[in-house]
């Protein structure tokens, strides 16, 4: 079982490396890069939301901070926004500390709502601080590199690093602590796990990689405004959708979800015209109703059902 998984992994990795050789149309490359950005964000969200069970409706805050860190470097100081790839994630992680301090006093739906409110506060702040962020006009930069293949490989590298680090965290003792917090926080506390500390660690790393994706987005798309990067529906909520679609608390679920989300979005846009979001919304409803643990999550369960092993769906590792 594990061996076949490894072989599949190697094949997919080689295929991902060779893709730019086969596909050369800029449009296809653009779609692939978007998939990579969403996959990084999804993987990052999954660490906090999937493994630790702290569903955040405000990850747009970290994404936006990462993107603005890169954009403002260029806008105010004239420094290459690529330095934002370092500054962005660090700033997002720093921002996550007070956020964690505030929001981890709350649990379950209250945590979700507090994060939602914080995400919105960030959007309003960045819209209103016009002298610093250029307000709703947004930031436009002239990208130094326009070759899409370069962005593809850096995106791929970013995704690999993100998945590697998250997997390391999840496979280590910390990962088990996080899952135990998700399953029963009181029981975890009574076993002597410092739950607040580990939840803060989870949001810290989650914010770091979301900020990284944000900085990369700034470099690639070269235009941001508060309503794009801090958007509640099209970033925060869609991010949750992507992870749910692919599979919560699975290693590759967010990546699968990101690919599906972007590709289905494009297919619907070209074939259905203005009804594309409608069809996507219906699809989301159907998937949540019939595949509640996402595609990757349910594949594992189906396999176990087929091989008649004793199932424990909730394990999630």
């Amino acid at each position, binding site marked *: 079982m594990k061996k076949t998984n490894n072989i599949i992994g190697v094949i997919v990795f080689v295929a991902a490396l060779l893709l730019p050789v086969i596909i050369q149309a800029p449009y296809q490359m653009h779609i692939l890069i978007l998939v990579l950005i969403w996959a990084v964000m999804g993987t990052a969200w999954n660490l906090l939301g999937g493994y630790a069970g702290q569903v955040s409706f405000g990850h747009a805050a970290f994404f936006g901070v990462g993107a603005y860190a890169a954009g403002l470097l260029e806008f105010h100081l004239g420094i290459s926004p690529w330095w934002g790839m370092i500054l962005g994630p660090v700033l997002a992680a720093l921002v996550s500390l007070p956020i964690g301090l505030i929001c981890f*006093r709350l649990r379950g739906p209250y945590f979700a709502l507090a994060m939602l409110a914080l995400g919105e506060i960030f959007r309003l702040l960045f819209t209103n601080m016009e002298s610093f962020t250029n307000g709703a006009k947004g930031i436009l930069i002239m990208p130094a590199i326009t070759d899409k293949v370069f962005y593809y490989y850096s995106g791929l590298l970013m995704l690999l690093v993100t998945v590697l680090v998250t997997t390391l965290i999840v496979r280590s003792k910390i990962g088990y602590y996080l899952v135990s917090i998700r399953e029963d926080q009181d029981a975890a506390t009574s076993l002597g796990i410092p739950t607040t500390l580990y939840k803060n660690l989870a949001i810290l790393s989650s914010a770091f990689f979301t900020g990284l994706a944000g900085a990369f987005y700034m470099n690639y798309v070269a235009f941001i405004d508060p309503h794009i990067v801090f958007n509640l529906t099209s970033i925060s909520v869609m991010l949750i959708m992507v992870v*749910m679609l692919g599979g919560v608390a699975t290693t590759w679920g967010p990546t699968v979800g990101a690919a599906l989300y972007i590709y289905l979005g494009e297919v619907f846009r070209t074939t259905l015209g203005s009804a594309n979001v*409608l069809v996507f919304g219906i699809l*989301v409803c159907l998937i*949540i*109703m019939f595949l509640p643990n996402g595609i990757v999550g349910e594949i594992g369960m189906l396999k176990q059902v087929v091989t008649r092993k004793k199932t424990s769906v909730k394990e999630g590792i």
Partner: protein
Amino acid sequence: MVLFGQTVICGILLGGMYALIAIGMTLIMGVMNIINLAHGSLVMVGMYVAYVCFTQFGIDPYLGMFAAMAVLFVIGCLLQRYMINRLVEVDSILPENQVLLTVGIMLVLTEIARLIFKSDYRSVTTSYSSQTMYFGDMSISVPMLTGFFIAMLFTFLLHLFLTRTDIGKSIRAVAQDRDAAIYMGINSSKITMITFGIGSALAAAGGSLLLPLFYLWPDIGHFFTAKAFIITILGGMGSTMGAGIGGLVLGIAESLGATYISMGYKDIVGLVIFLLVLLFLPGGFRSLAKR
């Protein structure tokens, strides 16, 4: 002083109408224990029903409101029965599934509205749209005042319904303890369905009252969802009276913020109050009353 009075009155009137929307949300939250993020889009659908009544048949929004409420009651019942209820038994890693389903419903409703009505900004112009009354030096817009009083009337009627009728008492029983309610012979799934319907109908009522005041476009739902859940948390989940007071507080706070800080920051004022209440008064205003 006139400016201050004007600001507070404006806030109270608007807050009263927000409260009606939030009461719908808090009813659903109390009985089903879920955050209904589709609530704002139900408001939006209600507004469109009232809008169509006005433009096609010339029915005044205050009468079209009843048509909107009937339509939304049916939509709410169907949504609960065939979609959200299905998830109650499903076993999944994250319990937030139902919340996400309501997000999916929100997407679908918004996009259906966009498909039919396009993204154009629409508004209803009635004979009283721009009328104002003077109260000393302070001017009060007539549609706001009418909307406020109708909203208060509805809140009062709902209160009577919840405390005096059998269905109302069953709703409160299910909200307090579902299992105990079932032992008492209450058909809890039917009650849940009816509650969702009533919540949606109240959303439609609130929307129709705001129709003469607001521009209408498909994405306006997000705005109402945000307002409604802030008010719901302010008042305490599941508390009708709390939601009423929460609505007034939010209305006044935003109105003061808009006048004395700046128009752009007025939404932040509401969100900051929301966070503070979440942190330091997690039971909402209801818990103050209990002390």
